[in-house]
């Protein structure tokens, strides 16, 4: 890919995915979810706050377009289950919002923006255990940047992005950041 260095909304860094590419990646993931779950039967999409939640909603909307299927969609906050809570001051909680149908016996697809160490996903698996017993749990991410610290992998990946650990990957989404882009830079906001 011919990515050129430029600044999006004053943020320095290299844009690795633009809005159009994000849209195509999500479209592909939506098709893959339908394929792998035999038509999206019993699928529940759970976004991990902050940016996993709008991604999950977009995937649900895509699946709705393709199959006319209403996929239940919610959010799963993992803050209280994190293993690094004591490394930082107590942080504000995100929202956990399950669809009324619950998760018991369902195929839950966790949705997040970036897969990195895998620790957030581990926390999400713990949080999910307390909420019910899904039949299967799968993972969809927009960007997989490598450097796993736990034996965790994604089932659906928007883009594999080889990075160095010094680099920072920002996913910007219209719902949160007023624009769609994936940026990579040497340093940036603390995640």
């Amino acid at each position, binding site marked *: 890919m011919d990515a050129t260095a430029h600044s999006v909304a004053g943020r320095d860094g290299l844009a690795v995915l633009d809005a159009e590419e994000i849209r195509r990646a999500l479209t592909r993931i939506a098709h893959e979810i339908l394929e792998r779950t035999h038509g999206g039967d019993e699928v529940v999409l759970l976004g991990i706050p902050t940016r996993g939640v709008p991604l999950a909603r977009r995937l649900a909307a895509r699946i709705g377009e393709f199959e006319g299927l209403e996929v239940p969609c919610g959010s799963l906050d993992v803050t209280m*289950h994190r293993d690094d*809570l004591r490394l930082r*001051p*107590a942080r504000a909680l995100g929202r*956990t919002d399950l669809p009324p149908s619950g998760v018991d016996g369902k195929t839950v697809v966790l949705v997040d923006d970036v897969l990195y160490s895998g620790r957030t996903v581990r926390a999400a698996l713990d949080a999910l255990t307390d909420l019910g017993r899904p039949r299967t749990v799968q993972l969809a991410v927009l960007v997989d940047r490598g450097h796993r610290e736990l034996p965790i992998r994604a089932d659906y990946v928007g883009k594999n992005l080889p990075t160095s650990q010094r680099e920072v990957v920002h996913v910007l989404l219209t719902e949160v950041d007023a624009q769609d882009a994936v940026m990579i830079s040497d340093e940036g906001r603390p995640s």
Partner: protein
Amino acid sequence: MKRHLISAADLSRGDALLILDTAEELASLADRPIKKLPTLRGRTVVNLFFEDSTRTRISFEAAAKRLSADVINFSAKGSSVAKGESLKDTALTLEAMGADAVVIRHSASGAAHRLAGWVRGSVVNAGDGTHEHPTQALLDAFTIRRKLRASSGRGAGLDGIRVTIVGDVLHSRVARSNVLLLSSLGAEVTLAAPPTLLPLAVDTWPCAVSYDLDTELPKSDVVMMLRVQQERMTAAYFPSVREYSRRYGLDAARMARLPEHAIVMHPGPMNRGVEIAAEVADSARSTIVEQVANGVTTRMAVLYLLLGGTEFPEVAS
């Protein structure tokens, strides 16, 4: 957030809103099959109660347990305090046991503040004499926000809500904490009480004062009734209970003067028939039972924000 929660004045508007927003997220836990989070695993919370209490102690205990903390309950009855041990020696004992937080209820105003100077962990004031009871104010603010600002969601204050606090303000730690907290959240607070039951320095408090409950009722969004604390009364503050009840008690006729949406609160325990009539306490407008449920949620938020993160820097030094 500061390391201790001694006074509602320790909380900035931002701190208070963070606690309310955290409590809002934790509230859904009560509806889940597993009402427990692993967040404070391995942390120890000591409930140090020198004064009788039902709901506050149970509420703190439930809050700490739902966050997986270990809870040690200490009540003065049946302990070495009955043999004359001082607060400081008791505190040092707890310190040696490695308490990460001490929740203290004491009959002496300032006890929580003194304790904070002696222990390394966080101190949460669960009522000190006639001084303060900040977690009660937080749960009251949380209840008001859920009832009257339900649609505003996260980050919403109590701006413009008119709260009338009625009765024994002089002996009430709940009133002081509520005046401080509710006013920093933007509410307009009025105290309605007989002059003998108002503290001397009430003119320095961020609130209005009235001696006439009936003129305040039609403009109130919230009426908070205070318990007449006969156990703390060392003089005659009003001619008779019956006269107090007629002028400052909330009965059905008075409740009818409230606006349609107004709610009736009471921190408990109630003296039915004195400051609040039974029919009012049991009416649909009363939030008294809800306040108890919200107490657990709010205290979980406080314990999480005090203990859930890294240790406060001054502890290390």
